[in-house]
């Protein structure tokens, strides 16, 4: 029970800090919008091409804006010695990871929803299946992004050249997430594929479970002095 309330308090801290500064979400949203606008200049999609290209474009916009946000998840803690405070507090390291995982997922999911809005508006995307399946996909994919993104964000915050290291580590790591999410999305848009929507979402779930478990086990070593 204490463990859960510890997690909740770190999440609350992250959300309050974000609501006061609005720095991360604002940058993520603007970046997401800019990407979608650049895409719309770069690709002219008719309805047929849409099925093939839209899922990839959408998830590319998602991952890039997610990385932008993840970059500040831990590096912001190093300003004003916040990290020291966090480490000195009687909270287990794994609880810090889980809390950061959840708050990152919330921020990323929020920016994804707005990007999706822009995308549907500018590209006129139509889902042939139910919306709630896509929401499920977004949640699973976003948790996947943050599962590895949170631990890599903590790693890159400890290096010189922070901003470069995170995408270098994160992009190859999220390839399974990207493939599964893009394929499942194109199924929702009515494309015929060899594997079903269920198979791809199970793959996302497996990715999430594996990397959350591994990260919980490994996170304490990152903050080790």
């Amino acid at each position, binding site marked *: 029970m204490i463990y859960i309330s510890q997690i909740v308090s770190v999440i609350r801290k992250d959300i309050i800090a974000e609501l006061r500064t609005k720095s991360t979400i604002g940058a993520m949203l603007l970046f997401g919008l800019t990407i979608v606008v650049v895409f719309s200049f770069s690709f002219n999609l008719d309805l047929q091409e849409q099925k093939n290209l839209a899922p990839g474009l959408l998830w590319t916009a998602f991952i890039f804006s997610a990385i932008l946000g993840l970059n500040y998840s831990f590096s912001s803690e190093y300003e004003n010695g916040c990290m020291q405070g966090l480490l000195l507090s009687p909270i287990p390291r794994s609880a810090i990871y889980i809390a950061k995982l959840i708050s990152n997922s919330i921020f990323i999911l929020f920016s994804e929803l707005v990007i999706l809005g822009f995308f549907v508006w500018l590209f006129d995307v139509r889902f042939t299946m139910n919306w709630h399946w896509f929401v499920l996909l977004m949640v699973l994919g976003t948790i996947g992004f943050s599962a590895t993104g949170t*631990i890599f964000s903590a790693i890159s915050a400890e290096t*010189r050249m922070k901003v470069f290291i995170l995408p*270098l*580590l994160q992009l*190859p790591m999220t390839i*399974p997430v990207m*493939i599964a999410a893009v394929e499942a999305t194109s199924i929702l848009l009515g494309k015929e594929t060899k594997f079903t929507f269920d198979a791809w979402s199970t793959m996302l779930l*497996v990715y999430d479970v594996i990397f959350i478990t591994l990260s919980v086990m490994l996170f304490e*070593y990152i903050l*080790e002095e």
Partner: protein
Amino acid sequence: MPRISSNVLLIIAAVLMLIAIYMVFIYAPTERTMGDIQRIFYFHVSSAWVGFFAFGVTFFYSAAFLKKKDLKWDNIAVSSAEIGLLFTTITLITGSLWARPVWGIWWTWDARLTSTLVLWLIYLSYLMLRNYIESETKRAYLSSVVGIIGFTNVFLVYFSIRWWRTQHPAPVIAGGSGSGLAPEMQLTFGFCLVAFTALYVYILSKKVEIGRAGWEIEDIYRTLDDK
């Protein structure tokens, strides 16, 4: 490692590699449809095996470092990662050289090709990461975590891409009915695997020695600074 056993490793690796080259180019028969280009297969698969094995070693010693917190394990992990990267590079290049005449293309987004490329990218960023961390202990901790997560990911990458598309020739050995190599080819292939593994062990022992020599030099500098 003492000098003598290192020299023994060198001799074993050198002799095995020379025999391997002889077997690949002279002993093994020419393949009927592909011709001489098929001979690249012996070195291609052997390098792929060594690359993957080396990353496995990195995974193992990264975990060992996190458990024992002794930098010598980290030294082995990073040495093996560098060699793995080298052999994975060889795999990608020889594969491309083979694919051009046989498939008519240099590259295709097939499961094995793509996961090898991703493996290559992950360990390149692993080595990059190490360059950007000043403290030696910190470097060891952070890169060990990446070494473990990265290796685990390779399996998921492989399965996700396999579902996505596949073009790589099915395993020729033990790949079900209709597969199989001529006995001479099989012998050459097996021999190449052993020779490449011996080469790997020798290079690894040298790399680990260099890492240790680096620490000794640092110690000497430190004592000089104290004086």
